[in-house]
């Protein structure tokens, strides 16, 4: 890791769901850092545990889920040691979150203004008038036209893109140091997505906050993130800076993801899918979680779980191929660049 200050360090985080006496490990030993002022992308397919990791940071995990281990160090303090009251001081204040579905995450029975004022009242003690002024200011900041009018409107009176802007305004109300964005643009059309991503980027530069961007869209990652953690079955399998990840991906899963992605910017002869499907959470393979789908897997992979290891340049990989123990083909080439033909 380069010598940078990390605003958040998550170490060996474990979150499980206890259903009918069985433990389902949704997040199974997740480790990542968020450098200050930068954007960390967490990517993975459905069920990889990316959203649960994010919810765990703010301890928004409800029954039957439980954080069963690990550390979440925010500016040197472990949030898991905090009481509920202390965590409330952090939530929506120092760390805030925006969700995928702007309609279901806004309260339909309160006006936009009332919802933004709530955080201001709790954390900054602003009264009604001051709160409303600040709310209007925030709506203007996130690019909502005629904010004086919008502040008195209800969520149903706004379009999807507008609602997401309101969510962002709420999240920014107390100048957070860390913003967690959980699939913030997945429900939006591309032209609106472009507006929202641009907005988050601009605000990040303005306020100097750090961002965790959770997404399944590798295009969004490439455009908005500085560092990326790729998750598979509750574990981080690769952590690298964004250029390294796209130019020289090393984990077979990351390579598989990039190979199966249909791209809008180049012509591709064919897509190379990852064979098989994600194993069900109650029936995880004993060794590497990806072994049953991995084209390079050996007995070692099927029987023993690899560690997330530093491989230099701040990159971390959870794969036997990059260890001394590797017992398969020593010349194995996981990634062959320039597979896609550029046109134009």
């Amino acid at each position, binding site marked *: 890791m380069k010598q940078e200050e990390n605003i958040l360090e998550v170490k060996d985080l474990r979150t499980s769901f206890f259903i009918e006496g069985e433990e389902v490990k949704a997040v199974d030993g997740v480790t990542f850092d968020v450098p200050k002022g930068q954007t960390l992308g967490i990517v993975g*397919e*459905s069920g990889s545990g990316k959203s649960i990791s994010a919810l765990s940071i703010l301890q928004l995990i409800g029954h039957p889920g439980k954080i069963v281990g690990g550390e979440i160090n925010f500016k040197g303090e472990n949030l898991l040691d905090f009481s509920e009251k202390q965590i409330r001081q952090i939530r929506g204040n120092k760390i805030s979150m925006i969700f995928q579905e702007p309609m279901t995450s806004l309260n339909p029975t309160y006006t936009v203004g009332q919802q933004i004022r709530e955080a201001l009242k709790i954390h900054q003690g602003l009264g009604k008038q001051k709160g409303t002024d600040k709310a209007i200011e925030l709506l203007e900041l996130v690019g909502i036209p005629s904010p004086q009018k919008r502040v008195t409107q209800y969520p149903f009176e706004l*379009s*999807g*893109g*507008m609602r997401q802007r309101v969510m962002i305004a709420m999240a920014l109300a107390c100048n957070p140091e860390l913003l967690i964005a959980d699939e913030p643009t997945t429900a939006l*059309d*591309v*032209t*609106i*997505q*472009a*507006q929202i*991503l*641009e907005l988050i980027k601009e605000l990040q530069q303005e306020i100097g906050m750090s961002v965790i961007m959770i997404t*399944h*869209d*590798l*295009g*969004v*990652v*490439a*455009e*908005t993130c500085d560092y990326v953690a790729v998750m598979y079955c509750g574990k981080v399998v690769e952590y690298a800076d*964004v*250029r390294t990840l*796209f*130019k020289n991906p090393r984990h077979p899963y990351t390579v*598989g*993801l*990039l*190979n*199966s*992605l*249909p*791209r*809008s*910017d180049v*012509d*591709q002869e*064919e*897509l*190379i*899918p*990852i*064979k098989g*499907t*994600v194993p069900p959470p109650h029936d995880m393979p004993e060794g590497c979680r990806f072994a049953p789908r991995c084209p390079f897997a050996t007995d070692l992979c099927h029987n023993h779980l690899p560690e997330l290891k530093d491989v230099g340049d701040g990159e971390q990989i959870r794969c036997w191929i990059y260890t001394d123990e590797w017992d398969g083909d020593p010349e194995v080439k996981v990634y062959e660049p320039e597979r896609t033909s550029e*046109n*134009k």
Partner: protein
Amino acid sequence: MSQKELLKINNLKQYFPIKGGVFGRTVNNVKAVDDVTFTIYEGETVSVVGESGCGKSTTGRAILRLDEPTAGEVEFDGTNVLGLNKKDMRKMRKDMQIIFQDPYASLNPRQTVRQTLVEAMDIQNVVPKKDRANRVSELMETVGLQPHQADRFPHEFSGGQRQRIGIARALSVDPKLIICDEAVSALDVSIQAQVLNLLKKFQDEMNLTYLFIAHDLGVVRHISDRIIVMYLGKIVEIGDKKSIFNNPQHPYTKALLSAIPVPDPDKKTERIFLQGDVPSPIDPPSGCRFHTRCPFATEKCVEETPELRDEDYMDGGHQAACHYIREIESGEHKPTRDTSKVRQV
């Protein structure tokens, strides 16, 4: 590619009435599809793209008469589809199948996969009864599932597997045309690639024709031969894949393509930011429907509706509905107002 016209759509309109008042009179219409004309040739894949509310799914449903179109003509293989009675329409659907977006909602949860597949064959009477068991096994294998899984219920399958069942159901009656309505949108990329490859394989083997409705332009670029871009119920641009992606002419198509995030951190694209949202299809803007968001709009765009047309420098079959195609291309017509900003990303 053979040039036999398989599906001809002429001036298709689909209005959904809005009822209101004491007497439940129609007070207005949602003009979901408003005067759409295009042709699909046998063996090709035509994609319809656009943002939510542009009418792409409605077009697909109207062709199969899942919603009865308000006006227009649909001609399939020489037959006027809209003139058929219910019984003949049902027969017609043997050749025109659809795969839906949500693989869970579109399968009957109380039927096993076998029952679902046999039901389709039964209705269309395509395979002799005694051969149906074999046909089911064959279909399961074709879409990459185990024949013994045929006796399971939909909830026992994963999302990708369910979508394969949807495909198997569509294939079970040997159709000529399959309408894929966001058929891969709900799937994770690794699974999506499996299903896309499967669809391509079947097309080659069975000479299928696809009308592919999607919003993901990566998927569209991969699977299509030709592309139709829709905005607020109208076609704004049509052409083959290369023309649309390499040489888009309509300002909306340009903005749409520039908005897609590219999975390459080194690629610098010039992004056109459209301001505001898509207007309501209840009272769509006059003239060119894109004029409220278009950076190049003028008085003429507010008043006159542009027709699809081409310019001599455009490839054959490539058309766009804009008054200023040539002038924008040559740089003669500059952005008229600051409704969008262009910057290097």
